[in-house]
């Protein structure tokens, strides 16, 4: 039973980048997992290998050691099985917002017409109402991220890997996005692995949070966020939230200090 609910696992992932300048041990024996319908965050200082871990889980980079399992099957190095939203929005300038978000549908062989018809009803819910036929450069940063997110959702996989989707946004827009994401996530019933270095974001959105160390990235701690759902943005002001925050922050600080000492 525990095995069947374990949707996604990365086990003992180790990766060293070999450059002309020398070897860069980036990930060391990292294991993370997500159960069906779970929202998991990975938090760590900048440059600790979070994006590398996600691209390994997405099958875009092959690890030196370790494996990735989906539904208990080994899928290491296989791309195209999970939804992946990279750090940059990567909307293409020659397609309208609508045609950008249906890119994965088109790749899957769905006709443009059918894909558009499928995407159109979602446009409004993703805060892009009225912008379907606009070009990406006319969109605000927050809207671009939502378009990129909708593109990931329309790939229609159970797992979504999100790499700092709100990292480039200002604090105000980011908090609006958090509130919005809390709302849509309920309806989407997806399993999410979110990479971030924002503590509030991790606590507010997640069921579980992994804390990583600076390079080479290792998992130093794991927290269950026991705050009840549905959550609203006001939660960040509550005593419960602050307790979680204090624990997470001290774990983060310890992990950084640990790396500095070694």
């Amino acid at each position, binding site marked *: 039973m525990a095995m069947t609910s374990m949707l996604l696992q990365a086990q003992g992932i180790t990766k060293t980048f070999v450059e002309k300048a020398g070897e860069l041990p980036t990930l060391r024996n990292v294991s993370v997992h997500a159960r069906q319908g779970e929202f998991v965050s990975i938090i760590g200082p900048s440059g600790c290998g979070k994006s590398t871990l996600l*691209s390994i889980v*997405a*099958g*875009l980079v092959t690890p030196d050691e370790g494996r990735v399992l989906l539904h208990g099957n080994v899928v290491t190095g296989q*791309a*195209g099985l*999970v*939804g*992946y939203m*990279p*750090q*940059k929005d*990567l909307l*293409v*300038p*020659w397609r309208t917002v609508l045609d950008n978000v249906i*890119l*994965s549908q*088109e*790749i*899957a062989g769905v006709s443009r017409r059918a894909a558009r018809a499928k995407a159109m009803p979602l446009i*409004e819910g993703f805060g892009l*109402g*009225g*912008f379907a036929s*606009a*070009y990406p*450069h*006319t*969109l605000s940063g927050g809207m671009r991220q939502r378009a990129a997110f909708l593109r990931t959702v329309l*790939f229609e996989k159970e797992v979504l890997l999100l790499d700092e989707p709100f990292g480039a946004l200002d604090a105000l827009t980011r908090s609006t996005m958090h509130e919005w994401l809390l709302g849509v996530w309920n309806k989407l019933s997806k399993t999410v692995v979110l990479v971030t270095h924002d503590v509030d974001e991790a606590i507010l959105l997640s069921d579980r949070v992994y804390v990583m160390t600076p390079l080479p990235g290792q998992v130093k701690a794991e927290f269950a966020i026991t705050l009840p759902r549905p959550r609203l943005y006001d939660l960040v002001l509550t005593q419960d939230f602050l307790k979680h925050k204090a624990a997470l922050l001290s774990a983060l600080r310890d992990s950084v200090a640990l790396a500095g000492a070694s």
Partner: protein
Amino acid sequence: MSAGRRVLPAATRTAPEGKTRRSSPLMAASSGYLISLLLGLIAIAIWQAVADFSSLKQWLLPSPWEVLQAFADSPALIMRHAAVTAEEALLGFGVALAIGAALAIAITQSRLAERALYPYVIASQAVPVIAIAPVLVVWFGFGLLPKIVVIVLITFFPVTINMVDGIRNVDPEMMGLMRSMGASRWQIFRLVQLPSAMPYFFSGAKVAAAVSVIGAIFGEWVGANEGLGYFLKYSSAQFLTARVFAAILVLAVMGLALFYAVAFVERKTIPWAKRARHTASQ
């Protein structure tokens, strides 16, 4: 509600234009052309004055008026030769676009093709076309073919080089995103690499358009019995310098026309390139 929201992108879109409108883009553009026209007129006036007051003979320095007369004397003759050259230039240009693009695609899609072809693509530009043109005539005769070969030889290069850069310039993360969505290599090429390379392709095509006319003249110079190159050659041999200048003017107009035709097609086929550049440079 959706109508109210629609206001926003429109507003952001007009913002950069609004900035330039204060200095009136229409006036700026037309005053640019006005200056261009003025420069031309000044040059012609100086030319006319020098020709009138210097002791140089007409066959050494014909005045603009005499050039105009040379054209007016035999417009049908010049235009007949011009039509031949235009046909060669257009055909050669078309073939160069096709070959140039095909080479770029081969070079970027296959490591083997890159290693096998790229050195020759670059080495081809060291070939002194003037020197081998006579040989081409021996090989291919006096017809259209040697001219096309010369034009292609000197115009495919900017197309290929620019397009290779364009295809390679695609963000590696975009390639990763496409792979993560299960895209095949063909889909990545068709949906991402090719569209992103289009602005580069057109840059190369504009260079090729401007040069293709010269290519046609090269080809005709060494072996032809019609075309502006042939006309130029025998006119200059007879010291009909005014005619030479008249033919050169016609050539210049041809080059301009071809260049602007390509620019026009570019604006029609990839309107997004200009808009995106506009925002990127803000």
